[in-house]
């Protein structure tokens, strides 16, 4: 028998702060964490702004030896997991819970900054001896493995890399594992650290990064703004959470995925719509049950009108009753962490009955004609919310949540 699955722990590291409270306060106030790039001199990059997790200090969380084993993306993931586990009240070292717990994380690029530094030393400085920790720091499962080690979790542990859909794929698989009874508990989410010069120059060449800020669904939008950070959730069966009196952030009720088979970078509304329909089918709910969509909403010309068309195709006339916002306007596009950070935003929106806005919105676009909750948060009695992630490579993953009853 399939079990109902709830979220009992939530942790966040982001440009909006490194706690649930700071993250939520910024979201509900529509306060953007996008600022001038701090880590490289002005003029290094064609784009001036980013959403860096700039208040994260490694020394606050790891001693120097521990930090040496962990790229920044793994540190973000471990710290987000610590918050989530502490909030859940679970102790994975008690009895056999550690064996019955899964960890599924998403990461698009792994420890790219560690690799970048090594290659710089080799090619530019002719320093032919690599740091021997380069491989364990750079591996994309660095965060998952650290969380496993730290909490003594010995169940299924792995990392999903599907570009910007990575952590929605991770959340969905963890959800299905708990729902089916394969595991009793899961830690799921994603983490990403994008601020290495080599990677930023590669993004610059894609010509999709905004020369100003991120203005999703606004007619004058000019592209995405890169961000970094992490979010981790603790998932467990509803009955178990109730039995131990745990705080329930919300319920995970559906997961859907699809591939566009259309183009390596251009999105397809049909593919996005298929993933949304698949998530609805998995939940057993009609489209009319959904009240809020945390959109993929990157702020690129292509994504926002394609996503709008996909939402219209799935929801029909109900699309005009939906609230649709892109919180990337505040925490930036965190690539492989995006789905997890947006899941946290969606769960907190359901819990507080406040829909975070699309910040930086300036000008209506007839091709993005949904209620995008411009600039100011809105109180709303929403029971069911959808969180979309669509990736380069045409890979789509959609998660559905319900407010805790």
């Amino acid at each position: 028998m399939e079990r109902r699955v709830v979220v009992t722990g939530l942790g966040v590291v982001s440009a909006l702060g490194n706690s649930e409270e700071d993250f939520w306060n910024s979201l509900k106030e529509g306060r953007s964490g996008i600022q001038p790039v701090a880590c490289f001199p002005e003029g290094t990059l064609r784009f001036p702004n980013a959403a860096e997790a700039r208040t994260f200090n490694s020394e606050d969380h790891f001693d120097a030896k521990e930090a040496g084993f962990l790229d920044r993306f793994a540190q973000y993931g471990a710290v987000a997991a610590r918050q989530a586990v502490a909030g859940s009240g679970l102790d994975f070292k008690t009895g056999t819970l550690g064996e019955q717990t899964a960890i599924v994380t998403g990461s698009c690029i792994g420890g790219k900054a560690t690799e970048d530094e090594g290659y710089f030393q080799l090619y530019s400085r002719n320093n032919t001896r690599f740091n021997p920790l380069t491989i364990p720091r750079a591996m994309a499962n660095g965060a998952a493995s650290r969380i496993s080690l730290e909490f003594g979790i010995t169940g299924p542990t792995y990392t999903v890399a599907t570009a910007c859909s990575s952590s929605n794929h991770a959340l969905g698989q963890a959800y299905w594992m708990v729902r089916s009874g394969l595991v009793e508990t899961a830690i799921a989410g994603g983490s990403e650290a994008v601020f290495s010069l080599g990677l930023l120059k590669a993004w610059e060449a894609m010509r999709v990064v905004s020369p100003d800020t991120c203005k999703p669904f606004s007619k004058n939008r000019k592209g995405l703004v890169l961000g970094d950070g992490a979010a981790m959730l603790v998932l467990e069966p509803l009955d178990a959470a109730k039995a131990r009196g745990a705080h329930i952030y919300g319920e995970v009720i559906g997961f859907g995925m699809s591939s566009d088979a259309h183009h390596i970078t251009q999105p397809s509304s049909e593919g996005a719509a298929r993933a949304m329909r698949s998530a609805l089918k998995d939940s057993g709910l009609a489209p009319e049950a959904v009240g809020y969509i945390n959109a993929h909403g990157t702020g690129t010309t292509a994504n926002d009108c394609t996503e709008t068309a996909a939402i219209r195709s799935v929801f029909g006339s109900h699309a005009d009753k939906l609230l649709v916002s892109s919180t990337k306007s505040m925490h930036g596009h965190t690539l492989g962490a995006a789905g997890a950070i947006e899941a946290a935003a969606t769960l907190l929106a359901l819990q507080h009955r406040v829909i975070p806005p699309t910040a930086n919105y300036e000008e209506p676009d007839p091709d993005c004609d949904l209620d995008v909750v411009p600039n100011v948060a809105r109180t709303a009695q929403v029971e069911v919310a959808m969180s979309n992630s669509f990736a380069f490579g045409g890979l789509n993953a959609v998660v559905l949540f319900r407010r805790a009853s």
Partner: protein
Amino acid sequence: MSDELTQRVIKVMAATQHQPVEKFSLESTFEELNIDSLDGINILFALENEFDINIPDEGAKQIRTVHEMVDGVRKLVEAKAAGPAPATV
């Protein structure tokens, strides 16, 4: 007009698209040449390297024909040759 700069732009575009230069004329549109957005940024990258120029995103997004691409590159090459405005003392 098919001057040296035009020929160089077309040569770079053809090489980037792995197509013979004969397929390209000043009048060709990107649509006719089957150049999509990702091909477009590859072409910009190749032209920046060929002429040692920086092509800004804003102008580049409007370009839809070989003619517009040649005109855009010519402006940037001429601006580069003129050099920065002399400092006033």
